């Protein structure tokens, strides 16, 4: 079983987080439609695009938290615009994702199993919350401090927010 995330030194986490957020100005991040819209010491909000099968695009906001970074991945959650409060299922700001041909992503709100309750779980190995739930992933898919960065988190999210996985907002 993998160790549960423990908060790291805030100063160290904030500095590493700040450095790695620079990736959002790279060509690749721009290609993926990612845009940094809020940056604080211990969190950032990234605007992402959901792209439906007919090409219609929907904006989403993902809040990344640095509390465990980069010993563990960033905490990640879909949030509402402006307030950055957690987006609830069945609302405009929470996407509907049905994975096609991939088995590495799950999206739950709330998650309540294995004696763990989380308001939201972006279930893949590049979020901190993933490690708060008992999992036994293949070793090669586990977050490696010093190798993986938040680019891994955001690039995978950009991938599932596209056709054929992305279906649209989960509510009005």
């Amino acid at each position, binding site marked *: 079983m993998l160790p549960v995330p423990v908060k790291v030194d805030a100063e160290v986490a904030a500095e590493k987080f700040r450095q*790695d957020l620079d*990736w959002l100005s*790279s060509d*690749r*991040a721009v290609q993926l439609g990612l845009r940094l819209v809020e940056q604080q010491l211990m969190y950032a909000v990234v605007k992402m695009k959901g792209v439906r099968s007919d090409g219609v695009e929907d904006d989403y906001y993902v809040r990344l938290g640095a509390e465990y970074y980069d010993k563990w991945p960033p905490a990640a959650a879909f949030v509402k615009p402006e307030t950055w409060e957690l987006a609830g299922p069945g609302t405009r700001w929470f996407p*509907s*994702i*049905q*994975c096609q041909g*991939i*088995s*590495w*992503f*799950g*999206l*739950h709100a709330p*998650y309540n*199993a*294995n004696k763990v309750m989380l308001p939201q*779980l972006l*279930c*893949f*190995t*590049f979020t901190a919350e*993933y490690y708060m*739930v*008992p*999992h036994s*992933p*293949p070793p*090669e*898919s*586990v977050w490696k401090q010093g*190798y*993986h*960065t*938040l*680019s*891994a988190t955001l*690039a*995978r999210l950009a991938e599932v927010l596209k056709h054929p996985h992305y279906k649209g907002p989960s509510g009005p």
Partner: protein
Amino acid sequence: MESNVANEKPRTVTIEVHNEDTGKKPIKLEGESTDLVQSFITKLYDALHTTQKPEDRLRCGKSEVNVFAYAKLTIVDFERHHCASPEWIFAGATGGASCCPCQ
């Protein structure tokens, strides 16, 4: 589909690989147009200081063609018939939802 490149003058092919796991500066791979795609893949793993794992993905450009599937082609044939983009995207294994399947 493979073309006969024997009569063509070899040229240098440069591929930039974005490593989505690290977000670091793209890795530049150079080779001759007559080289196999596999030789570019080998150079990539040399640069990454690791070996290929079954769940690794290497996609070409916006079409996201699976580069590994064409390892035996020459790079020029791969460019002509499958993906002409000089940008590839690498992503290592991702684990996740086997215990909490995708909704």
